[in-house]
């Protein structure tokens, strides 16, 4: 059971065997053990190997000897011992001495006390989301190290070949080791910016699950749930950071609609016509509470404004009674923080609800005047809808046809075909 070279796929062994106790422990404890060991080893790959070996041993021992009283402590201690063995074999001189000292320093978790396991996941998140790694690598590393997704699962979720994803992970882990990217929470003035990087990665993971129009439904839901879990962990570890709280609020509020969003064929149902009784009220009330806490700091941030937008929809009884004036103001705030054509388009659509189709159309066309939205089907869809309401049928049909040609999802295509047919 020698650990193989870095880069080979790391599939959880119990998936095939279906041992519930081990699988449960893996979901709960692996990220934490990897976090703590990678910090001491300064090497994510070796940490993953050690934890994997601990689970392979568990697979052998637990069915025979029974599940230990404290499974997490057992896994942690076993993985740490494996790491120590490997460092003794593979490192030399001062480096070996220092690594072993760090492994000693993180302490031997008593097999009776789960509380003794240090929680270094925050440090690991900061390493995985370091700005010196490219964004794709940050997302992949985070999913793999903190969520325990396999290389194959991540590759499938992001629609890239398995080998490409494996390469991406190997390179990123190598860079963490060779450039000595620290496994640590940044101190001082750099913290807000780095927290923002972490929030962005979590939001990208969520969005990949939420907004993607292709790929297996199961994987997409999983990504959303993993992002919520990460945001929860981050919020527990950094409870006084308004943007972190707002991020958790945002993903909860958005995910609360998930049952109402998909039709029987897996197509996306737009907010306007969703059956709001299917929304998850518990998630909404948690999201609203978090948003209130985040807003109490009085600092506008990207996630705070986005969560506030989601909250306006969550609070509204239906599409028509939504507070569109407030939504326009929130989009203005977002545009002030980060100008973007897509945000300007969304603002224009909300403006049409307040000031009517004429004003809306002018704003939509202004959002698209630089050509940035030419390939973005919602731009043509919004334009088509406003032209239709203005009675400019011929132009509306052309816009809906453009939206139809650009959309990749069958349900959406049917939606636009219906629009054209009923003009």
């Amino acid at each position, binding site marked *: 059971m020698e650990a193989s070279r870095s880069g080979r796929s790391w599939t959880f062994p119990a998936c095939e065997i279906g041992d519930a106790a081990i699988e449960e422990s893996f979901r709960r404890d692996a990220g934490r053990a990897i976090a703590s060991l990678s910090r001491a080893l300064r090497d994510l790959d070796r940490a993953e190997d050690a934890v994997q070996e601990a689970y392979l041993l568990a697979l052998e021992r637990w069915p025979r000897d029974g599940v230990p009283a404290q499974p997490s402590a057992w896994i942690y201690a076993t993985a740490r011992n494996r790491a120590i063995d490997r460092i003794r074999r593979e490192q*030399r001189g001062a480096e070996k001495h220092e690594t072993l000292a760090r492994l000693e320093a993180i302490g031997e978790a008593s097999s009776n006390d789960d509380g003794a396991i240090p929680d270094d996941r925050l440090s690991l998140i900061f390493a995985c989301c*370091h700005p*010196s790694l490219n964004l794709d690598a940050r997302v992949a590393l985070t999913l793999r190290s903190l969520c325990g997704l396999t290389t194959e699962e991540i590759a499938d979720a992001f629609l890239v070949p398995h080998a490409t994803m494996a390469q991406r992970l190997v390179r990123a882990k190598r860079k963490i080791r*060779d*450039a*000595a*990217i*620290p496994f*640590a929470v*940044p101190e001082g003035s*750099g913290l807000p910016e780095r927290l923002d990087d972490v929030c962005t990665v979590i939001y990208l993971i969520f969005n990949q699950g939420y907004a993607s129009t292709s790929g297996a439904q199961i994987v997409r839901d999983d990504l959303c749930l993993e992002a919520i879990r990460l945001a929860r962990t981050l919020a527990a570890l950094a409870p006084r950071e308004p943007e972190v709280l707002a991020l958790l609020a945002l993903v909860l509020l958005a995910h609360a609609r998930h049952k109402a969003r998909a039709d029987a064929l897996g197509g996306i149902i737009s907010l306007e016509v969703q059956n709001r009784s299917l929304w998850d009220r518990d998630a909404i009330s948690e999201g609203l509470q978090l948003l209130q806490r985040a807003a109490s700091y009085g600092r506008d941030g990207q996630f705070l404004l986005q969560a506030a937008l989601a909250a306006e929809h969550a609070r509204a009884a239906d599409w028509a009674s939504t507070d569109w004036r407030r939504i326009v103001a929130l989009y203005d705030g977002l545009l002030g923080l980060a100008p973007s054509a897509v945000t300007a388009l969304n603002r224009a659509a909300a403006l049409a609800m307040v000031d009517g189709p004429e004003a809306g159309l002018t704003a939509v066309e202004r959002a698209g005047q630089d050509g940035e939205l030419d390939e973005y089907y919602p731009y043509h869809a919004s334009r088509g809808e406003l032209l239709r309401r203005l009675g400019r049928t011929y132009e509306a049909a052309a816009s809906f046809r453009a939206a139809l040609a650009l959309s990749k999802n069958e349900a959406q295509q049917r939606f636009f075909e219906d629009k054209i047919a009923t003009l």
Partner: protein
Amino acid sequence: MQYACLIYDPVDSPPPSPEEKQQVFGEYMKFSEDVQKAGVIRGGAPLQPTDTATTVRVRKGERLTTDGPFAETKEWLAGFYLLECNNLDEALAWAAKIPGAKYGSIEVRPLLDIPGM
């Protein structure tokens, strides 16, 4: 771990006035003093502009000498510092304080540690 902080200046910037030159020089003196005091400096040097460069290659045992730099680029290597830091974040924090970071770019690269070399 040692990091090379490579200082790249833009090629097409207008030539500095004598006062500006003096100011930049002063800023570099200050930075060099700071890294000295912190005990992190292991080396470094400013370089003459690329129009002083000559490039040498040996192909099939024969030496080829060409005028000018290895490659024409929009930014030129103007100098470097060699810093001993605990990790990349520390190195990046120092790099951000190099005066050239304000108008050019600092590329931070870890040194390759080969035992016995």
